[in-house]
């Protein structure tokens, strides 16, 4: 026990001596939490639309004003021909072109049907798809209004109509930050703890001080614990700072029990730090440790369900995600913070993370050899 305390004193001194490192631990999560949620916004709005109205009728004008008034679309240009409008798409100034052909109003009334032409820049598939869906909805609405104008109003609806009401639970105002902030915080805690612990032992190797520790009677588990505990505490500091930012800047407070979040964090940090230490014991230089850690952390972050839903992934990818500790943390953060889930809902996550922690730390301890 006393050996451990001395080791801890040494580690803390080393951390507090390095001002840049401390600044990074404190400033990075705060700055990232301020910028990332604002930037990481998938909401599709401001779709730039180029209009080619060859009809110039009151109908076509009404349709145009409906589209621009919907809030989803921004008029990028009012062009005379499709060719002109297409150039706007080529130069990225427009996302889609709507062409209203000549005779739109006349044909609609006389022949009972009329086509509209839509061309969408589909390089960004999601945006294209949603833009198309929004526009079709506006056109459908507009269409039923015209129908109403021309048909005799009868006691019943002339055509069968299904009325759809939709409600959004847990986040009624569709606040995107409410969704992103908890996930981003989980990612930041993982990144910082992961990198720092990965760099730690290997630095002693590179500088050569590890030899001095190896010749002392310090036990392996003491050494690993001594490396682990300081970063464990720092992880708590980072997380708490992040929660404060979430509360003060975004007004987000957990709907569930905050103690439950910290309990999960305690286990989770052990797993991540064990992972970092494991990388550290396998690497010879800091550069190597950094790249290996980066390699895994970027995979964890991309496949953690932060940016894209895990449900949409193919079978094999979902199998890989099961080995991704970050995905469990992001999940738990969202469950507890947004939906107010309790212990019973996250006990599976807790069990898995405990398993990760035991395996990774045990492996790191076995792999650290006191002889070279």
């Amino acid at each position, binding site marked *: 026990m006393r050996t451990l305390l001395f080791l801890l004193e040494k580690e803390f001194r080393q951390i507090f001596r390095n001002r*840049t*490192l401390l600044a*990074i631990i404190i400033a990075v999560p705060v700055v990232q939490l301020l910028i990332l949620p*604002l*930037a990481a*916004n*998938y*909401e599709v709005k401001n779709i730039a639309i180029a209009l080619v109205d060859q009809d110039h009728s009151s109908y076509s004008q009404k349709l145009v004003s409906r589209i621009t008034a919907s809030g989803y679309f921004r008029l990028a240009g009012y062009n005379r021909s499709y060719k002109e409008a297409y150039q706007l*798409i*080529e130069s990225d100034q427009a996302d889609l072109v709507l062409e209203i052909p000549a005779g739109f109003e006349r044909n*609609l009334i006389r022949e*009972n*049907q009329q*086509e*509209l*032409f*839509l061309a*969408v820049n*589909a*390089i960004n*598939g999601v945006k294209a798809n949603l833009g198309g*869906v929004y526009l*079709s909805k506006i056109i459908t609405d*507009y269409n039923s209004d*015209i*129908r109403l104008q*021309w*048909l005799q109003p009868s006691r019943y609806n002339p*055509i*069968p*109509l*299904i*009325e*759809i*009401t*939709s409600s*959004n*639970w*847990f*986040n009624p105002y569709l606040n995107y930050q409410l969704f992103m902030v908890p996930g981003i915080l989980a990612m930041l805690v993982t990144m910082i703890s992961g*990198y720092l612990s990965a760099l730690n032992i290997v630095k002693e190797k590179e500088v050569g001080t590890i030899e001095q520790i190896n010749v002392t009677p310090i036990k392996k588990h003491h050494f690993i614990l001594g490396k682990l505990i300081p970063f464990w505490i720092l992880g708590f500091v980072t997380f708490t700072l992040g929660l404060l930012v979430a509360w003060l800047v975004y007004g987000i407070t957990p709907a569930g029990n905050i103690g439950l979040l910290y309990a999960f964090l305690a286990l989770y940090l052990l797993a991540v730090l064990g992972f970092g230490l494991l990388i550290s014991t396998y*690497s010879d230089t*800091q*550069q*190597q440790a*950094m*790249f290996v850690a980066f*390699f895994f952390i970027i995979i964890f972050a*991309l*496949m953690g369900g932060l940016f*894209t*839903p895990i449900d*949409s992934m*193919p079978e094999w*990818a979902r199998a890989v995600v099961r080995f991704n500790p970050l995905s469990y943390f992001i999940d738990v953060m*969202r*469950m507890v913070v*947004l*939906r107010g889930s309790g212990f019973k*809902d996250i006990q599976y996550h807790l069990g898995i993370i405990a398993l990760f922690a035991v395996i990774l730390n045990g492996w790191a301890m076995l792999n650290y050899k006191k002889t070279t």
Partner: protein
Amino acid sequence: MKQFLIFVRKEFAHVLRDRKTLLILFGLPVVLIIIFGFALTNEIKNTKIIIVDYAKDLATQKLINKIESSPYFELEKSIRSHQEIEAAFREGKIKLAVVFPANFNTDLAHLHQAQLQIIADASDPNTANTLTNYLTMIVLDYQAELMQANQVPYRIIPETRMLYNPQLKGAPNFVPGVMALVLMLVCVMMTSISIVKEKELGTMEILLVSPFRPILVILAKAVPYLLLSLLNVITILLLSVFVLGLPIKGSILLLFAESTLFIITSLALGLLISVRTESQQTAMLISLMGMLLPTILFSGFMFPIENMPLPLQLISNVVPSKWYYQIVKAVMIKGLGFSAIWQETLILAGITIFLILVSLKNFKIRLA
């Protein structure tokens, strides 16, 4: 010149000796392409939903079949009452619930009006929105079928054409992004670390007192990374053509020329970081936090720039990868020529010259 080549050989030896790092450098683009190409998609597929059907009649059965057969939804289970919805949401698996009230079919057939309710778990607002939209489309589709039977007049039929990417794949959007990301990583992180490492280990002094000109020491460091990066560009292009089936529409020569320009920009950035920092850890964390995240955020390949608040949009203009991303997209996906991208090229070149000048000004040949 001969001296320079010897130095380049020394740097190559450094790079090639570290097998693990090398493996990561070449493994990373492959893994990223596979993840982005096959695992990550914003498309919504197989979302688990529950249905509360109080009507259990012909119309609801038809609608449920339609919902089930769409690729977007997967019916998890039918529950008896809407009170169970909240518990199902809390478990976190179900994203959407559809409630059919009793007498759905009778209302529809006789009153010509029926109601249904969609409840979405909006903790992820975007998915919730998209799911609601998809489900609405399915219902509207069903309604249109009913209408066709009734011969509805005055129909407007929108005909949609998807340009450049008719199957709405994710690849055209992210391949240019992955290129920017990998080049940034290799050039900025590797150069800055390799220069700072010489400082940290003290070998920089030896290099500086040699008769070799200091600036050439730095140049020699850049050469291996330039070549490695070009190899990475080739790997990514090969993967995207042969694995993802994404053809290169424009001129390959132009693409390589622009990539070389961007690599030089990144090398200059790495150089700047290395002259300003003293320890490897700091250099790494700065290049990681300061360069990689902006690349992911501000290049526009993951998040649309036009949605960001104005200050962030302004910041995105100084991020070189944004311009490179636009260039690659124009050349590779749209097949445009140099005349369409000369402005972006000019901006990128301007940033590069600026970075080189600043780092040369800060470059000290004496160590403290």
